[in-house]
């Protein structure tokens, strides 16, 4: 595949992520923070986000399985997840977290479980998408091209 083609594909793909609301402007800012002195910044942060989220989701799931659910603890976890997802610009995860926290406040275990599924679903979605994105970028780099900075044009 030609580098130029790959580049435009990457651009289209990124654009679709924004259009679908999976990512928001924060991700762009994240990309802007990446420069020569810090070449793998985005990947580094996002993988940190994956690890962190994975751990948090496990913790939340475990806490929800308990006989008596400690909503305070869950709320703290969800807050963490919300913070990190907003930091990387994973908008839909963040929104799901906001809904989740409302049910935590109400101490509604049933809805909380549903929300956990929702968050998980969104998380895996964004994980998939981002992994694809990174693969694309790596391909471009491997082919000797440069990853274009995406301008917000919508």
């Amino acid at each position, binding site marked *: 595949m030609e580098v130029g083609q790959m580049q435009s594909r990457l651009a289209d793909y990124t654009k679709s992520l924004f259009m679908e609301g999976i990512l928001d402007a924060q991700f762009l800012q994240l990309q802007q923070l990446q420069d020569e002195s810090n070449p793998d910044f985005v990947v580094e942060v996002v993988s940190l986000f994956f690890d962190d989220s994975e751990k948090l989701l496990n913790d939340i799931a475990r806490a929800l399985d308990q006989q008596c659910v400690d909503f305070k603890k869950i709320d703290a976890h969800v807050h963490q997840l919300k913070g990190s997802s907003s*930091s990387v610009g994973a908008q839909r995860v963040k929104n799901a977290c906001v809904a989740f926290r409302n049910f935590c406040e109400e101490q509604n275990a049933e809805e909380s479980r549903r929300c956990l599924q929702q968050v998980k679903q969104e998380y895996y979605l964004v994980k998939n998408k981002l992994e694809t994105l990174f693969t694309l970028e790596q391909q471009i780099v491997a082919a000797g091209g440069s990853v274009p900075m995406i301008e917000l044009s919508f």
Partner: protein
Amino acid sequence: MSLLNVVGFGLKVGHLLLMLCYWIVSVISMNWFINSGIMDSKTGLLSNSGKMWLRCWEKISGNSCKIQHNYSQYFGSKSVPKEWWRKLLITWVFGWTIVSLWILWYMSSQATEKRKESLASMCDERARMLQDQFNVSMNHIQAMSIMISIFHHGKNPSAIDQRTFARYTERTAFERPLTSGVAYAVRVLHSEREQFEKQQGWTIKRMDTLEQNPVHEDDYAPEALEPSPIQEEYAPVIFAQDTISHVVSLDMLSGKEDRENVLSARASGKGVLTAPFRLLKTNRLGVILTFAVYKTDLPSNATPNERIQATDGYLGGVFDIESLVEKLLQQLASKQTILVNVYDTTNHPISMYGSNVLDDGLQHVSALNFGDPFRKHEMRCRFKQKPPWPWLAITTSIGILVIALLVGYIFHATVNRIAKVEDDCQKMTELKKQAEAADVAKSQFLATVSHEIRTPMNGVLGMLDMLMDTDLDVTQQDYVRTAQDSGKALVSLINEVLDQAKIESGRLELEAVQFDLRAILDDVLSLFSGKTPGKGVELAVYISDRVPEMLIGDAGRFRQIITNLMGNSIKFTEKGHIFVTVHLVEEVIGSIEVETESLSKSTLSGFPVADRQRSWEGFRTFSQEGSTCPLSSPSSDLINLIVSVEDTGVGIPIEAQSRVFTPFMQVGPSISRTHGGTGIGLSISKCLVGLMKGEIGFVSIPKIGSTFTFTAVFTNGSPHPNDYKNLPINNQSKSTSSEFQGMRALVVDPRPVRAKVSRYHIQRLGIRVEVVPDLNQGFANISSGNTVIDMVLVEQEVWDQESVKKSDSRIPPKLFLLANPIGSSRISDATPGDYTPPVIMKPLRASMLSASLQRAMGVGNKGNPRNGELPGFSLRNLLLGRKILIVDDNLVNLRVAAGALKKYGAEVVCADSGKKAISLLKPPHRFDACFMDIQMPEIDGFEATRRIRDMEHSFNNLIQHGEVSVEAPQNISNLHVPILAMTADVIQATHEQSLKCGMDGYVSKPFEAQQLYREVSLFFQSASNGNI
């Protein structure tokens, strides 16, 4: 307040009534003192009680003082319980009831006393009269007895016989008004009886049978009487008055009453009375008075035996008491009012006169002395009528009681009123609390909502920022700037809602910063120029040359007022123009006559307008300055601006003009549907103008337009306050660009007002301007060649293709058209191939004008600095080489924040908990700043900051005492590392709490370049100045 008034009034009335009571009481007690003087018998007691009264009086007046004192205490402390009042009230009513009863009793007893007295005097009078008359009769009878002793017994033969006696007594009856008859009985011993009977020619008859069987007068027959039985002695009647001639020959000793009478009379030698008895014949009550007739004159101290021996006979007078008393009473006045009874009370009371009425009412007894020591008589009098009701006493006491009750009622009502007012007050306080709570909730809501709107708006503005970074041409830049300004205007609209809340709570304060008035008006104009296309409304701004370039005041608020007024104008204007003028107040006053020419020709667009003059007619400043100081001294640093916004819109209906400045009021409900808006703009403007020590007013004529005018006071911000009079044009142009310096322009415009506006804007670029009314004259001017004209600006409506062609050969270097947005379409419709000069779109403003001229004339280059560069570049400046600690428990967030700060060249250290941050920031350390997440497990941001501040505090203390040598490079005596909170929610409360904990500011998460710059610049500015 009105309640207090009512209470005060009640107190006054109460006091008045109290005084009235005192007066009445004093009158009564004085009356009593007078009476006490009259009643001798009770003087001692009364004077005592008088003193007591005096004491009482003192006490009461003392009490009244006390009551008033209590009132003041009551209002002062409110500590007196309600029960106390109730008790006082009951005591009051009870006490006055007793007082009034006492008065009733006292006054009625007075009346009774008086009545008794009058009865006594009447009774005594009657008794005395009766006694006198009786005595007169008695004396006469005694005289008669002496006559008999002389003429009957003293002479032999007797000079008196029955006939003589009867005649004499008949003729002297008037002397004895009380006697109905007199008779004389002679003493006859049994031995002399026969001789006596023979001599008289009748036998002595006994009387007792007659007494036992009383007969009627008609049947009376003396012959039928039994002769007297044999006795030791007899006392037969020999002489009798005609009225009682039937008693002749009766033996007086045989009658029981008569016998006692006769015996006691001769023993005592005085007149003796019988008990009352029924008289023979008449059957009326009567008494008989008996005198003894003695043979010889006896000495006054003769013994009864001697008297009995010496007795010759007995003279008796019959007193018909009943008729006599009646006769007597008839002679007296007021016989109707009293009843008189006369009793013989020797053994047991025997009624002698008067009906025997059983009445135990008031009666008076007077003793009667009829000269008989053995008999006692008395007169009893009583009133015929019952005593009348003591009306005076009753009315007085009832009056006093009523007054006391009224006063009591007033007290009661007052106390109740006070209680009610207190209750109401309590209720009000509760309601007030609720309202305040609601108000707090409202502002909370507003804050939340505005935050929600601001967040996406920040996104929009941020993107526009980024767009500005890209390579844009002049027009694009202008678009972007306008978009940005519009976005900012939207944010300011939200702020407006908050402002209204602030103004309502009086918390709005004005800033005092230096600003360029012309730039602000250009901004506003460009903001609105985007809203007018298609409407054909011409926007224009004119600022007088005498207004200084820089002013000190609240630029934002000033802009807000202008924006509000212009926004309104634009909403309601479909055609014509909107014209903003700024003058000095002195200027306007000075040229008042010049300005008044409001002919339709002289307006900006040719449409008629409302007379601007009239909009400031009511201004205070004008009337004051116009009279006292017509031109305020220019040396004063205060600049008094007058700003008018004139439009040719629909105008304000006359009936709605009065409530234009009321918040949330629009002309009608349909207006908000067609034009939108909250309706608070004008009310906010009015408040703001008031804060700027100015006034706002307007004049509006329906279907012609409105003109709003306001004044505002600013401080002169120009370096030479006195220079503004001949303000150098160079001064202004500095702000835009200087490449047009010294050029000359010709403006072709038939309307002087519009030409003035054009000239004002072109002059700002440093270009000298001439104005000519039409094209031909303009070309003539150019051709005359006196001056070099660099450019010609022609008003679109006078653009004439032909005339230009005619003078084609002498076309000046550059020709421009000044056109309205709506007019431009017409231009483009013009036949292609014709010569069309470049068009400069109105509204004119310095930046736009200079850009257009630049493009057309190729002068200079893109000199405008890119706005977006500023924060990023400056941030780098600020943060380069700084050592910054970032604290966040969220690793992802930590990484992102670190990355962002590293990008600006900062040296970043990360900490993932509050504990770590505290240990890292333990002084001395080398950190320049700290960004701290607030929500963290174990130790949150607030707590961590608090502990760090504590450590710094104790460390500073140590340094001050010289106990620790300072080897820190920033050799400062007061260590205070800037700590910024990182938070996702931007609620005011969080902000305030963070400041309370010793944080220096906050940045929202994720970082926004603008905000980061603003916060960081606050404390790195001074440091960088010192270090770099």
